[in-house]
């Protein structure tokens, strides 16, 4: 008798549909395990208005400079692409970009925060209102 064609034991037969069902469920839910990247979330400039208090301390002061390893102006972020801002913040958080201050700030931000902050700064122009929050 060909061993390959031998029927499998009864208990295993009953498990097959269950295994198939489990596999199907796992497959369906596998998409949820992908962590939402900061730039996939929808940010809102209005929500960002309340979240930029950490940013204004350096990035809203004209001529503000950092001093390591050389003296340089902190970048202008008003009018910058929102997805760039949020991806840069994520890179600081992940450690792909090294900078002690930016890392400390970004670790306190959620993906949604980063998206909102990105949208807030992207919306800035010479005619946009100054942030009324203290």
């Amino acid at each position, binding site marked *: 008798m060909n061993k390959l064609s031998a029927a499998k034991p009864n208990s295993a037969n009953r498990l097959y549909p269950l295994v198939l069902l489990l596999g199907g469920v796992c497959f369906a839910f596998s998409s949820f395990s992908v962590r939402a990247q900061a730039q996939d979330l929808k940010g809102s400039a209005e929500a960002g208005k309340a979240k930029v208090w950490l940013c204004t301390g350096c990035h809203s002061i004209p001529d503000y400079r950092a001093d390591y390893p050389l003296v*340089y102006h902190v970048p202008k972020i008003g*009018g910058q692409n929102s997805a760039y801002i949020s991806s840069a913040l994520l890179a600081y958080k992940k450690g792909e970009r090294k900078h002690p201050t930016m890392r400390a700030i970004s670790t306190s931000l959620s993906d949604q925060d980063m998206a909102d902050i990105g949208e807030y700064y992207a919306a*800035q122009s010479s005619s946009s209102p*100054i942030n009324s929050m203290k």
Partner: protein
Amino acid sequence: MKFIVISLLFLASMGVASAADIESGKKLVAERNCAACHGPDFYTSIAPTYPRLAGQHEDYLYYALRSYQVETNANFGRKNAIMGSQAKGLTEPQMRNIAAYLASLPGPLLVKK
């Protein structure tokens, strides 16, 4: 007299730390095709995750290029496959000139609360 001539020659040969060369920066940027990603005006990038560069602070742009070069530096390195390969091989004067050119362009970047 000899002293004056010699000291003048010495000073001339030092090469005054001049303002970075914007024209040279413009040539470099064209050669290296930065506009391919950052846009022809350097504020209409091809992907929203690529930054606008036009009008950014000159010293910050130099700092950023340098950071991409020293990607493993624990204090200011940046690990980015695209920019790392772009910044590779740039000398300091080249980076300063590129930064000066990009900083001189008109753009929407600003400092505001």
